């Protein structure tokens, strides 16, 4: 404990900007020397793609090499640069603090994206994993609005995702591609990237309208009824798509143009986090929490419970639709089987693992389940024993998830750290 405390103390002066600089240094080291020198001398066949997890599990002989690689490329540079640069990054952070918070946040996000882009760009497999993880973040955060902040148990998220995926795919196929199903493109394909946001919004809107089919009949009741109705909705959407031959039926729909590169997905993810954060901290969000805790009391305090619940539900569904649209354009292929009970289990696992009522928790949940799922890939069948076991332990020791009921405090996160240190030891 002593060492950990000391360690924490030592790095308490590093602001977020300093950590970014440290990670940037690590990524640059990997970029320039990772393949030719470091991994070569450590006897690794290539740059370990997910911090060496894959190679360690496949060939235990490589464990020392992979660990040494992580140490040399990531741990040491990040810590050293972050600590040593704090004399520039702290004034830098102080300078940014004078700017409006949103501008400072945007600058930080741009820096973060640049680093992420560089790191992922080393290998296309990383790009794909990062893309799907970001899509999962949107899904998890949006389901948290319903299952966390609203306190319902909704099972229809894969259905909303399917609506978004199919509507946006149909739009891009009709508008920007020459394909077998819908014939020639109506608009020049060059317009695709510019109109893609509208396509995604249309997908989200379709999901939101679809969510009314669940919301209207079920919100007179509470608890289990919604779970059952929403589950039914998911199966209805799946069966409907399977029986619609015009959009491919069970055979699926492919050939979507590749309109979702990493920056686009990153932008949408950040937008989603920002909008949902504002939503749940707004008056409507507070009203939602009161409805969750005691509906009758909320009603008597002039909260329009029905309207609040409907709005939140449609809002959650909208983002699930957007996530579905992005998902379809990352894989460039969808079939109804993708949006079934397996997907539901995955989404619920991410949200309950990460933590209810917390955006940070959702992000943690989505990232950890996705990264675990990839990192444990070499274990094949045992992966499906380990991940559920972890989930069970989380549920036993932290029933509300890893990080629940906490919010992002952007100001505190981004501030310069030297002032606080002066406060502690004058």
């Amino acid at each position: 404990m002593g060492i950990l405390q000391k360690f924490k103390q030592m790095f308490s002066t590093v602001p977020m900007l300093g950590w970014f600089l440290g990670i940037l240094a690590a990524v640059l080291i990997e970029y320039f020397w990772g393949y030719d020198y470091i991994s070569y001398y450590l006897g690794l066949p290539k740059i370990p793609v997910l911090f060496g997890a894959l190679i360690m599990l496949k060939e235990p002989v490589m464990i020392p090499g992979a660990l040494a690689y992580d140490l040399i490329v990531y741990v040491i540079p990040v810590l050293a640069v972050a600590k040593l640069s704090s004399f520039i990054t702290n004034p830098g952070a102080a300078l940014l603090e004078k700017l409006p918070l949103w501008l400072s946040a945007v600058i930080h996000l741009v820096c973060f994206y640049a680093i992420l882009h560089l790191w992922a760009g080393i290998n296309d497999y990383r790009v794909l994993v990062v893309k799907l993880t970001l899509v999962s973040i949107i899904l998890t955060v949006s389901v948290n609005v319903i299952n966390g902040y609203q306190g319902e148990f909704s099972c229809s998220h894969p259905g909303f995702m399917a609506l978004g995926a199919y509507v946006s795919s149909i739009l891009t196929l009709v508008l920007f591609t020459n394909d077998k199903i819908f014939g020639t493109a109506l608009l020049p394909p060059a317009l695709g990237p510019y109109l893609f946001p509208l396509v995604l919004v249309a997908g989200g809107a379709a999901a939101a309208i679809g969510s009314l089919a669940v919301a209207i009949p079920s919100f007179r009741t509470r608890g289990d009824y919604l779970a059952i109705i929403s589950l039914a909705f998911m199966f209805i959407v799946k069966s409907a798509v399977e029986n619609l031959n015009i959009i491919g039926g069970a055979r699926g729909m492919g050939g979507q143009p590749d309109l979702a590169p990493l920056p686009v997905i990153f932008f949408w993810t950040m937008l989603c986090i920002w909008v949902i954060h504002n939503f749940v901290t707004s008056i409507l969000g507070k009203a939602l929490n009161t409805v969750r805790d005691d509906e009758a009391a909320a009603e008597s305090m002039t909260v329009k419970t029905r309207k609040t619940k409907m709005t939140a539900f449609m809002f959650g569904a909208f983002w699930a639709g957007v996530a579905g649209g992005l998902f379809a354009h990352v894989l460039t292929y969808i079939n109804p089987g993708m949006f079934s009970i397996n997907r539901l289990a995955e989404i619920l696992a991410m949200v309950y693992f990460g933590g209810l009522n917390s955006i940070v928790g959702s992000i943690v949940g989505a990232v950890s389940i996705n990264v675990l799922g990839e990192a444990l890939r070499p274990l094949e069948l045992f992966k499906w024993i380990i991940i559920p076991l972890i989930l069970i332990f989380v549920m036993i020791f932290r029933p509300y998830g890893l990080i629940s009921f906490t919010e992002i405090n952007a100001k505190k996160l981004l501030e310069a750290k030297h002032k606080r240190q002066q406060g502690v030891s004058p």
Partner: protein
Amino acid sequence: MRKIAVLTMLAFCTAMMFSSLAFSARKTIIKIGINAPLTGDIPKVGEGSKYAAQMWLEDIEKAGGLEVGGKKYEVELVIEDNESKAESAVKANTKMITQDDVLAIVGPQSSKQAVPAGEVANKYKTVMISPWSTNPSTTLDRPYVFRGCFLDPFQGPVVANFITEEFGFTKAAVLYDVASDYPKGLAEVFKQAWEDKHGPGSVVAYESFTTKDTDFSSQLTKIVKSGAEVLFTPQYYNEVPLIVSQAKNLGWTGPIVGSDSWGSAETVELCGEDCYGLFFSSHYAAAGAKGATKAFIDRYEKTYGYIPDDVAALTWDALRLAQQAIQDAGKLTGKIEKDREAVRDALAQIKDFDGITGKMTFTEEGDPIKCAVIVRINHQGEYEFYGSSCP
């Protein structure tokens, strides 16, 4: 503390900079990727692919490596699990291509994974051979994607012709899973072929159900009442036994005919005597096989304890095709992009490849022209060769 940190960093940096002669010394290893459903809905299919691949690797290792252009190269298999999910198959392909630097990929088996995974392989210009995927769009407009089996539009007419010639029936019934891509496609093709032969309305019952249904009595009652003489059901090994036994209980006496999805060893194991005497179209027949096919079957059975199904045989052929293409490519430059292209060109030019599932020559699209086999389940529960039909 600061000094120590700076010194270690400096030491590392200088050490790295002064030793640059290194990286060309990395050995060229031929890596073949296997993208198989080891977990998920159809693990038996994944197991068959994995075992066939391991047998193939054994052969190569016995020979001391793969000889290309007079030089022996070490061969390594990269086996990835696609969990029987489309996005996982895409991830597995991307990983194998960009991280493991595979020269060619064998798999995925089912069309719902092979279609999106083929997109990835084609994008990165890496040869992919799907041994079992029968959906036309797997290889359509994708020069780098090939397959090891015939397509549904070929198989449907083969079955229709066989029934007509063998039994002389004119009225058929079809029972299929509407939610699954393969049965649905094949049912449509069969219906089309049958009606072309016997006139519209000759498919007297065209009934469907949904994946994971286990009670087919209402559909089967309709089929029995419709006056159909033969029932065609292109289902997988988990449904066929249920359909067959329920049909018999409801008074169905005619023959039941299936397609290559029956070919798993599990079909007969689960179905028992009910299935004896039934026919299905397939890629090869295990009982009464000769030559290389028999050698493969015997070896597989000896090592793994059961008779290989068609997936294993097709995977074996796909691997042999990949091997042939790599050897035909002449020589390996060590530059993976160039080698992949050479392998693709060599593969497209292979003529009359003598596989254990028949002779193969690829069309422009990367689909093989090969014969279908009609298999009869005999009274020992073995899959026996009954006849074959060639394009």
